[in-house]
């Protein structure tokens, strides 16, 4: 385990140190995709619903399909962004247990969905043609979540 960690750590400086001048540009991280914030939001929405389900199992029937939809949105966005799949640690790091009771948890989820609907609609409006349909469906899905998250 330690050897593997040391080995991995030792590899990075070699890959990143730009021994060959013409490779230096390639080691620069690419400019973030304009949809990166929407991907982060989809993962955050999924985590918030999952945390609510864990805290209030009675909400599972209502919220499980909503959480699953956000995960599917994240997968689809990852595909069009061509980003590496979000790691398990990145997506499971955030879910703090909801702080209030069931009612206030649902209220917080509704606010998050409303905000998410707006950002997806804005992204759809600004997107190139080939991304517009996916983003439209994500905006519409978030609008429908407000019908069941109550």
């Amino acid at each position, binding site marked *: 385990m330690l050897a593997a960690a040391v080995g991995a750590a030792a590899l990075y400086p070699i890959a990143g140190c730009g021994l060959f001048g013409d490779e230096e540009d390639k080691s620069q991280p690419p400019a973030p995709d304009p949809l990166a914030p929407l991907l982060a939001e989809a993962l955050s929405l999924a985590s918030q619903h999952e945390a609510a389900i864990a805290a209030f199992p009675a909400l599972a*029937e209502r919220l499980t*399909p*909503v959480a*699953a*939809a956000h995960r*599917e*949105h994240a997968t*689809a966005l990852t595909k069009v962004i061509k980003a590496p799949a979000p790691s398990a640690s990145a997506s499971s790091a955030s879910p703090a247990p909801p702080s209030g009771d069931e009612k206030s948890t649902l209220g917080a989820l509704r606010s998050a969905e409303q905000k998410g*609907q707006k950002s997806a*609609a804005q992204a*759809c*409006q600004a997107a190139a*043609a*080939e991304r*517009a*349909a*996916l*983003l*439209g*469906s*994500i*905006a*519409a*899905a978030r*609008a*429908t*979540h*407000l*019908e*069941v998250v109550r």
Partner: protein
Amino acid sequence: MKPEALSAALEAEHAAIYAYGPIGVRLDNASAADARQAEAAHRTRRDALVLRLTEMGTSPPAAAASYTLPYKVTDRAAALKLATEIEERTAAVWRAALPETTETDRASALAALCDCAVRATRWRRRAGVSPATVPFPGRVT
């Protein structure tokens, strides 16, 4: 900006308006009120499309005298099923218009897609369909 996508949306709106007639008569009072609201929303979209297509110099397709329903609407269950399908179909046509449009036309198409998706969810809830939501409204699978 291609008028074909908006013409397709107009034809779907014509069909939706027609279908809400036989749907409405088979519904309970609360659902029938929703059906009237839905029909009014589709009429508003239709009118806006007729104006927009005319403005673009395209002749807006007229409604057919009647449409063949996919099955007989003989009871509440069939009415709720057809209402859901009508909204899903209209959502799909509006979704298809998104890549073909920009600016205000895209904003209208997106608002229409969201409205259809929300109504489909409401009809599924009334029908007791679970889950009442789909991950990608308007996407034809």
